[in-house]
């Protein structure tokens, strides 16, 4: 009995500490910009995210080099001249979902998240809307927002000005699993 009690105790404390913490190791990030001359479209499925359903804390981290472009030269220039990913290898978001929904119940919940978005070494406070959907206990998060290049000191030289939009649309989609250590 004593042994069972200890096991129960340890198990319960672990379970409770981890309860409501969700992780996603393969969030899909898509960036897109459109100009009359050229569309720029890149994808990564290597973003990682942690969501604490109890507190609403939400974090994302994207290795910038994992974004793959249709044109290889575009990818090279994106890394070398725009994002400077050898200096700033990660794009991150650290925020908090306002009034986090109860993810133990199935449903689709519109959410608003406030936090710091960092890319190219420049951090901006952002309020971004998205949705959390729970289907059969599986938590999915989707969001779409715009990043203004100028906000993050991403220079677009005059010479390629018409090929690259000033605003980049970012789409985020992640399917989460309950964190197990």
């Amino acid at each position, binding site marked *: 009995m*004593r042994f069972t009690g200890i096991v129960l105790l340890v198990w319960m404390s672990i379970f409770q500490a981890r309860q409501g913490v969700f992780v996603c190791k393969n969030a899909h990030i898509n960036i897109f910009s459109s100009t009359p001359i050229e569309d720029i479209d890149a994808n990564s499925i290597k973003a990682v995210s942690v969501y604490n359903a*109890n507190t609403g804390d939400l974090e994302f981290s994207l290795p910038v080099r994992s974004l793959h472009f*249709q044109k290889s030269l575009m990818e090279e220039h994106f890394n070398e*001249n725009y994002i400077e990913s050898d200096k700033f290898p990660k794009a991150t978001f*650290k925020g908090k979902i306002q009034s986090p929904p109860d993810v133990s119940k199935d449903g689709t919940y519109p959410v608003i998240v406030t936090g710091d978005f960092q890319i190219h070494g420049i951090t901006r406070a952002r309020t971004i809307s998205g949705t959390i959907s729970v289907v059969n206990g599986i938590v999915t998060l989707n969001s779409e927002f715009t990043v203004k290049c100028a906000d993050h000191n991403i220079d677009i*030289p005059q010479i390629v000005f018409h090929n690259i939009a000033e605003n980049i649309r970012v789409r985020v989609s992640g399917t989460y699993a309950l964190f197990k250590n």
Partner: protein
Amino acid sequence: MKKIFTLFVLLVAGMSVLAQQNNKTPSADSMLNLLSSTDAQHEQILPAFNATRLIFSPTTETVKKNNLNFLIIHRFGDMGTAIGGFRSFFGLDAVNDVYLGIEYGFTDNFQVSVGRNSIGQMGETQFKWALIHQSTDDHTPLNLTLLAGEGIRPYGSFASFGDRLSYIGELIISRKFSRTFSFELSPVYVRDNQPLPYVPGNPPGFFALSTAFRWKVTKRMSLIADYEHPFSSFRNNSGNFEDPIGFGAEFETGGHVFTLNVTNARAISQINSLSNSTSSYGRGQFRLGFTISRMFDFNKKKTSNNY
């Protein structure tokens, strides 16, 4: 005793619930680090050079898969001799060599190039294979690329067809020392079945060393320098030959790379410049030159907007 213990278990369990509500445990930060630790190991560095060629030397870079690079290279006439001066606009009216060529990437690491030089009307085919890429964590500290090329002179009088052919083999070794500075060193072997110049004592084959650097001054502009030295006792003893040296500025504008340079050597192809460079800076035999490289991407458009 049992009852007390059960009570204790329940108490602690209840407390842990309370504790959990108060704390943000576990810290999301540390968990994100835990997850990120699976990041790519030995990640390839960003390219050491902007283009596949510098002034004389090829770089360790190759054209990426399904990309086509179109090249126009010029060397003009002497700036500092009687040919130069304001009348010919410092040699611009006297074109010494023109190279037109294409390079195609069959994979991200293998390219084939075909082109034509004005000097000797020489057609050239080259195969370039990037074997090793420098990694960000210095697991591999160098870039290593192999080049094998062949030249053919279809015009002029030669004793046999074989004499029209020449070959070049090169092991290109480069290192990107910092975000702005890349250096390369390439042992070269040149074999010309009818040696150039075709004079007694000139052996058909010789080794050479080519060295170059790129210093990125701004995001769009780099300074480059290129130097070659043939190890040939025939060339050392004759006293007529000069080692090719070139200085240039490279401008990168998106799809184009534009290089403006000054060289003593007249020839563009390394087969020609290593074999037969006699012009010297000291005698005013230096010239303007440029390279225009334009990349076309034939990768299929992937639509990913609906997921």
